[in-house]
């Protein structure tokens, strides 16, 4: 480093220019001005529509019936007593539950394998996350191509493996069509679980396992004693997030089965969609959406708030 030179005296630069009235006000209210645009947008396109739909739920808003009379809870009861609505809720619960459970187990298994480094790991990692960036519609389309008779090769392959002819209608026969929907969901979202759980696994200090090994603990015991407790919060986070997304299942249903045959693959979202946009019973649809919303809100408030404390990021 150069030797410093003698001190040269400089004129004082003074304070910068005074702020105009507007600039002064803007600077004082800086924090509010920054959040304003986003908040206004969310108010306009989320809060306002929600309130609007709440109002619609209580009146008679139907393209086919004139007038907007107040009807109290009639729309809500129509939804609650509609057998298709109840079926769609049940189906949603089953499909989401099973899919998420499979995604979790599979994701965990793959994460446990991918924790170690090995040649080609980077490439495999890139391949494994691909399904996450694909539109669910396309996922549905891809599996339709595989499963739809007579074009899809699935029955042929199964036939070749099992040694006898397979003639399953994967998109038309129950219970196979539910399996198809679950497989499509698992295909797309297992990487979600996998990525999050892997992040959790790599944050566990390796010396815990080394100490356990020295103590003579086997891999299975180490898993339950070390891995699971450390991973538990991450597991809960992944499960909650995934579940909250899974119950909204719509895109794959739309493409793969169109809700059919009949109403056998109506999920909650799909049911509400048909009521609102094909039958145009708008009040009923908004009432149903509100019920669905309340349920989701409960889960979000109970679980997500705890998982994502804003200050402790």
């Amino acid at each position, binding site marked *: 480093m150069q030797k410093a030179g003698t001190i040269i005296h400089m004129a004082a630069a003074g304070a910068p220019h005074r702020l105009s009235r507007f600039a002064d006000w803007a600077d004082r209210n800086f924090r509010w001005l920054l959040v304003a645009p*986003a908040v206004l947008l969310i108010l306009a396109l989320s809060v306002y529509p*929600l309130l609007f739909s709440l109002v619609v739920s209580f009146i008679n808003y139907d393209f086919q019936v004139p007038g907007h009379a107040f009807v109290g809870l009639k729309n809500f009861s129509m939804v609650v007593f509609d057998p298709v609505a109840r079926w769609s809720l049940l189906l949603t619960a089953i499909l989401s539950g099973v899919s998420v459970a499979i995604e979790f187990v599979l994701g965990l298994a793959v994460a446990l394998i991918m924790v170690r480094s090995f040649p080609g790991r980077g490439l495999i990692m890139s*391949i494994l996350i691909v399904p996450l960036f*694909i539109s669910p519609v*396309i996922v549905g389309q891809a599996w339709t191509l595989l499963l739809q008779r007579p074009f899809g090769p699935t029955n042929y392959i199964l036939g070749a493996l099992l040694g006898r002819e397979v003639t399953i209608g994967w998109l038309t026969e129950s219970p196979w069509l539910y399996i198809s929907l679950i497989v499509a969901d698992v295909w797309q979202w297992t990487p979600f679980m996998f990525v999050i759980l892997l992040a959790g696994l790599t944050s566990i200090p390796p010396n815990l396992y080394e100490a356990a090994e020295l103590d003579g603990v086997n891999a299975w015991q180490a898993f339950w004693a070390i891995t699971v407790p450390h991973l538990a919060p991450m597991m809960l*986070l992944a499960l909650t997030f995934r579940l909250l997304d899974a119950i909204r299942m719509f895109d794959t249903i739309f493409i793969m089965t169109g809700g059919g045959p009949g109403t056998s693959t109506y999920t909650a979202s799909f049911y509400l969609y048909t009521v609102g946009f094909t039958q145009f019973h708008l009040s009923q649809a908004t009432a149903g959406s509100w019920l669905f919303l309340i349920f989701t809100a409960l889960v979000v408030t109970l679980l997500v708030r705890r998982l994502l404390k804003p200050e402790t990021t």
Partner: protein
Amino acid sequence: MAAVRPARRPRRSAVPLLRFLLLGFFLLFVLWPLYWMFNTSVKPSDDYLAMPPVWFPDAPTLVHYWAAMFTYRGLEGLINSLIVSLSATALSALLGTLMAYSLARYNTGGQHLSFWVLSQRFLPPIGIILPVFLIYRQIGLYDTHIGLIIAYTVFTLPVSVWMMFAYFRGMPRSMEEAALVDGCTRWEAFWRVAVPLAAPGIVAAAVFAFIACWTEFFFALLLTSRTAFTLPTVFRAFVGFQGAQYGEAAALAIVSLVPSIALGILAQKHLVRGLTLGAVRG
């Protein structure tokens, strides 16, 4: 950055074989539909119903791509998707960064505001699609690019805000403070110092917002029609019809997924942060 565990010498021979098999199976599972889709997209229609199935055509053709783009108006959908996604991404990244900075540095609105924005992420679209549809029809935003752009901006805001919030929280304040003492107003310190430093985070948030817009179906289906329809909605033309459209559907799918996959792989370093709204560092 967390450490990947070093490879260990296996002590029993069965377990690593199991691992290898499971991983191999899963890889196959992931690649299989993609392969079949690509295969279908270049397969001449004569080979569609061939038994045994044609694993790769002798005479691959691009005819389906052409049909998908023009006969089925896939190209238009693609252009619309591009316009809408880029605009919504830019808006979302901008507004999200502004809000995130305020939340991170000033704790604006405390817990309540941040939780409120966050919870928007979990709002089921079915909950607001009906009123938004009605409102849009009323004010003339139905089937317009702008209408969809606004909707997509709101839809991607929570993730943008939360990713940037985590990013700003990780940045030391001293540079912004130095800027304030040096002569900047709060806005200048933000725009000239904090934002350039947060550029990698902003890019990552933008990539995820783009992918979300690019792959979105539900809003596009119900808020657009013949003018502003996006690429995913074109697939509705292939629903139900038990006909010879397999190639076109596959071709369109391939065209659509290439950009989003490419972006996703480029941004994979930030993937965990994006998926968990910044709660977990990758």
